[in-house]
């Protein structure tokens, strides 16, 4: 039954039409048209009461107004529920990922244009190097220089080739559970640490973590912890080679450990290259964690100042630069801020190219990973969808919604609801997704109703 409040509200539509001397007719056969037929006997000016009464009379073969309306509403709400589900669970996650990816790339391009793209990595003295038993192992070699060993591949070739993970674990175990635990925390993958060019071993040039792995590995061979190690060491030549590399590695670790201790006591921040455990990345500033955190907490330091240093000097260490950063962090923070202020805004052409390429790559990958679908057809839909007009960053979301919806769904409904939600979010002072979905759904229902009527004079 038509509610009185509904009829009263609807009078606003009729009044607005009357004001411009316009009338409505309905598309025959449409759901709204079918509902109108239930009121066909009502054609007198009888007011709201009469209209209400007529809505409970079976005016067509399909039933009363209430029955036909309930049936239609349920059917359409099911269609809408599917549209909302697809929009929410299929299309929207891809749209969000693409927009986030484009924005991240845009930011990276802008930051790299002024040299501010970089990371800060804090390094700490590994617990294994502070372990007394380990220090006892390396102490005998403290004066042995870091050397370059050539043609060592012949000694280790077959040994390493046939080495099982189990044998490697036996070799690098020290016999102390505490020390072995510290080793495993520092060297998480011994096999990959030993995967390098064994034709030439430059002890000074290798990252510290690799040198520690080599030391433990050779110590295991030298002390013949496995049968294969015993066989290798049965050759005097091999024994000499192993002993020399072992001593050189031990010497490097001892000196680095002592140096680490010294720089921490000095209060240095910028790490020296040889104390970095991995191969250095030129876009990363390596800092001593303990001193870096202390510098921030008590001496006015900041990550921005550290990034300003990286932008200006790279990650090279010198005493002077290190001291300037410690004592005058404001200078580097100003440098960071100044560069931030110069951030290049991408040109419209660059921005359009970036968004189109990113969206194309992302969706191509999504299609590639889909199963039981006609991939050729989907790629064709994507190619056509990418041709949607895109006029720059302000329109990124609507462009992405159009491309993803057109590629992954049929019709316009999913695209329309997502665009409408985006519009509502733009209109709201405070973002509220639930409210935006609610209003967008109302607008979509209103559009669907509008498509079933025609305005006539």
């Amino acid at each position: 039954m038509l509610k009185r409040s509904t009829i009263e509200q609807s009078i606003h539509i009729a009044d607005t039409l009357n004001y411009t001397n316009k009338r409505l007719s309905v598309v025959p056969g449409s759901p709204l048209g079918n509902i109108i037929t239930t009121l066909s006997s009502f054609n007198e000016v009888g007011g709201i009461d009469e209209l209400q009464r007529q809505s409970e009379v079976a005016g067509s073969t399909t039933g009363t107004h209430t029955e036909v309306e309930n049936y239609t509403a349920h059917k359409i709400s099911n269609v809408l529920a599917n549209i909302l589900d697809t929009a929410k669970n299929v299309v929207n996650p891809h749209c969000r990922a693409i927009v986030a990816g484009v924005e991240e790339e845009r930011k990276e391009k802008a930051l790299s244009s002024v040299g501010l793209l970089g990371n800060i990595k804090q390094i700490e003295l590994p617990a294994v190097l502070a372990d007394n038993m380990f220090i006892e192992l390396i102490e005998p070699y403290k004066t042995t220089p870091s050397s370059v060993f050539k043609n060592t591949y012949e000694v280790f070739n077959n040994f390493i080739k046939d080495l099982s993970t189990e044998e490697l674990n036996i070799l690098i175990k020290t016999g102390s559970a505490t020390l072995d635990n510290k080793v495993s925390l520092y060297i998480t993958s011994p096999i990959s640490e030993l995967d390098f060019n064994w034709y030439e071993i430059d002890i000074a040039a290798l990252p510290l973590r690799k040198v520690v792995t080599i030391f433990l590995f050779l110590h295991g061979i030298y002390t013949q912890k496995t049968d294969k190690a015993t066989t290798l060491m049965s050759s005097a030549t091999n024994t000499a080679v192993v002993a020399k590399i072992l001593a050189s590695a031990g010497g490097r670790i001892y000196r680095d450990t002592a140096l680490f201790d010294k720089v921490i006591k000095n209060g240095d921040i910028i790490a020296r290259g040889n104390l970095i455990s991995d191969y250095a990345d030129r876009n990363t500033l390596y800092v001593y964690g303990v001193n870096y955190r202390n510098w921030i907490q008590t001496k006015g330091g900041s990550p921005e100042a550290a990034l300003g240093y990286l932008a200006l000097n790279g990650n090279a260490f010198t005493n002077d630069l290190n001291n300037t950063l410690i004592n005058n962090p404001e200078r580097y923070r100003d440098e960071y801020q100044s560069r931030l202020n110069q951030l290049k805004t991408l040109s419209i052409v660059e921005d359009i190219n970036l968004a189109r390429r990113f969206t194309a790559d992302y969706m191509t990958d999504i299609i590639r990973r889909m199963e039981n679908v006609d991939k050729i057809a989907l790629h064709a839909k994507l190619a056509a969808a990418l041709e949607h007009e895109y006029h720059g960053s302000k329109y990124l979301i609507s462009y992405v919604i159009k491309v993803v919806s057109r590629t992954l769904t049929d019709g316009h409904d999913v695209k329309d609801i997502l665009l409408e939600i985006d519009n509502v979010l733009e209109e709201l002072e405070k973002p509220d997704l639930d409210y935006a979905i609610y209003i967008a759904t109302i607008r979509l229902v209103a559009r669907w109703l509008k498509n079933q009527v025609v305005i006539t004079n």
Partner: protein
Amino acid sequence: MSISENSISEVTPVGPAQSKKEILTGKISACAVSLGVSILKDLIDTSKVSVPNTEDLSELITTAIIGELQL
């Protein structure tokens, strides 16, 4: 069934009398608002759309229809 499917190519003649046209306009408006409200209530009842407050659905759908009709 797609919600955007519709043809406006066939329109029922509504008779010559002006009053009949006005009555029909009133009926269509009332049925459109009522159907819109029923659809939204169905969606709300099945938790497909959450209602953020107690706004009058009839008023919201009426405003939205007027907007869509570009009156």
